[in-house]
């Protein structure tokens, strides 16, 4: 243990770092906890900004390059902020065979963005997933964490219009 933990230096700056501290503590500074710490950090910050990665690197006594390497290796970690809402279109085989590609094409056109981007008004991030395992109700779309089954271009777009209207 170092004399001044990262928490003491920066806790005043941002409460969200506390969540990271709790996880760091549970792993006792063991580098094996890196992925879990990144999960928690992303949960509390929404994405992994550079400052957060540096903070974690210090907490686990790892080179920043290694933390960055792991954060960029896994698809679920994002180094950029997302939109207010997220729309994930499942592109697993079952969804693909049943027309998930068309849903994506419609959303891309209507939102004027590509998969992986956020709409200009900062409202919607459009993502695709490899397979969310809801193949029985394909094509599936996940909007803000809610799984919607048997979707098509119109039903998904109307959901998004609804969200944006809120």
């Amino acid at each position, binding site marked *: 243990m170092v004399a001044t933990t990262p928490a003491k230096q920066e806790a005043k700056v941002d409460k969200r770092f506390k969540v990271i501290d709790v996880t760091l503590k549970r792993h006792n500074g*063991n*580098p*094996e*906890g*890196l*992925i*879990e710490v*990144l*999960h928690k950090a992303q949960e509390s910050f929404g994405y992994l900004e550079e400052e957060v990665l540096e903070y974690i690197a210090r907490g686990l006594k790892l080179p920043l390059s*290694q933390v960055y*390497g*792991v954060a960029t*290796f*896994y*698809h*679920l*970690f994002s180094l950029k902020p997302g939109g207010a809402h997220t729309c994930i279109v499942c*592109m*697993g*085989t*079952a969804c*693909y*065979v*049943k027309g998930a590609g068309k849903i994506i094409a419609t959303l891309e056109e209507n939102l004027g963005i590509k998969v992986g981007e956020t709409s200009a008004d900062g409202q919607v991030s459009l993502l695709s*997933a*490899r*397979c*969310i*395992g*809801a*193949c*029985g*109700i*394909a094509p*599936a779309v996940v909007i803000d964490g*809610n*799984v*919607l*089954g048997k979707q098509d271009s119109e039903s998904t777009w109307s959901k998004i219009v609804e969200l944006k209207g809120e």
Partner: protein
Amino acid sequence: MDLAHLQAIAEQEKQRQRAIRLHCCTSTGCQAAESLQVKDNLKKAIEKKGLGDRVEVVGVGCMGFCGRGPLVQVEPERKLYEEVTPEDAESIINALEGGKATAKEGDPDHPFFARQMRIVREHSGEIDPERIEEYIAVGGYQALYKALYEMTPATVIEEITKSGLRGRGGGGYPTGLKWATVAKMPGNQKYVICNADEGDPGAFMDRSVLESDPHLVLEGMAIAGYAVGANHGYIYVRAEYPLAIKRLQKAIQQAKQNGVLGTQILESPFDFKIDIRIGAGAFVCGEETALIQSIEGGRGNPRPRPPYPAERGLRGCPTLINNVETFANIKAIITKGADWYSSIGTANSKGTKIFALTGKIKNNGLIEVPMGITLREIVLEMGGGVPDGGEVKAVQTGGPSGGCIPASLLDTPVDYDSLLKIGSMMGSGGMVVMDQNTSMVEVAQFYMEFCREETCGKCIPCRTGTVQLHNLLTKLLDKRATTQDLELMESLCQMVKETSLCGLGQTAPNPVLSTWRYFRDEYLALVKA
């Protein structure tokens, strides 16, 4: 806790259960179709009618017929309701006393159910996965007791070996042999890992097992731990399965409270604890050496084998890695014996396999069938064929590592060796049906894009080979390719297959090779005139 306690819990639970039980599916698929609301409304209706002393509604795991969810089944009369809406709930309760339910009635004897043989999924859709008491009431943790008190680690391994069980993650390596290798290794610290990083698109068997019967997997892992001499297990689950993670956490906690996990399990000297590790969205982490890297907090890069994890795995210690479904088979083998288990299936593939039957098919969902059943029986009889009079063109098994089987080979029996022989593989259990409107070259491109995105980038054949193959397929689909490009494609496939470091790269060309083999006309038709 000892055996008497276990039996007492089972007895108490049986006493508690009401005469009529309404099983309401609460798995991911059905939850997306408001099944939780259905369950709430059923509960309210029971209370309203004052039937609480003889009727109860139970949130259960997956019943299998996901395409027609939410499902509600009334036991013991077995009446099945499909596509139930929250508004139907009250009428279902009224129907118990002779009324008419507004929900659509299903057929519990439909070939989709009748042709199944349920070993792993025996209690899926019948018990509440969030209550250990229900699992104990159907004989749960009795196999662990039997292993600890009536068997030695060596006889457990012998039993598993004799059963002929092979790894259900896709590779089909004999489970008993793997266990024996780990058991033989010297050292005090060994680990058991459950691979629940089910990444194949179109596959959700493991998710369903974890959501429907998590204790079955925990019990299998504990028995494995006893057999190989490990006291610590990990379950590596993909983050895309939040409900499975939640139920596993709950199950582990309940198992600890009841003394079937933790220290001195069932008052024996055996200790075993299980921790969960959550993935972060990398397909390659399904590969065992990559998975170990990921548990250790690193990038999921595979490393060359040997040494195999059985010799040097997690933290350099001997490690047993099996898939969810493999562990879920252990309880039945220990309870009913290897002879019973090996009487099911074919000469070299024993037992049953769960498949996720999806795509252009009438009855989609999860099925558990004995090995050796033909694809035709699965797709046409159980699955009901393609909806709206369409025709089956191909069946894809094994995900991005497998291949497309043409309709002409539908009589192939489903077992490890037969599927390999025709250029596909068993895989983890995804089975996607494609109809006459599906372009096979596009399917090949779809899988190649998948592999291109998911390659970890460590070895060159996989990193650049998948990119080049994808480019060639795109060129072909744009009608810019020549016959020379096709030759190049074929030789590149061989190269990637033979020289890649891990299973991901070695099998990545399979979707291209199998469609090239069986649907060559479609490739040739796209060649630039």
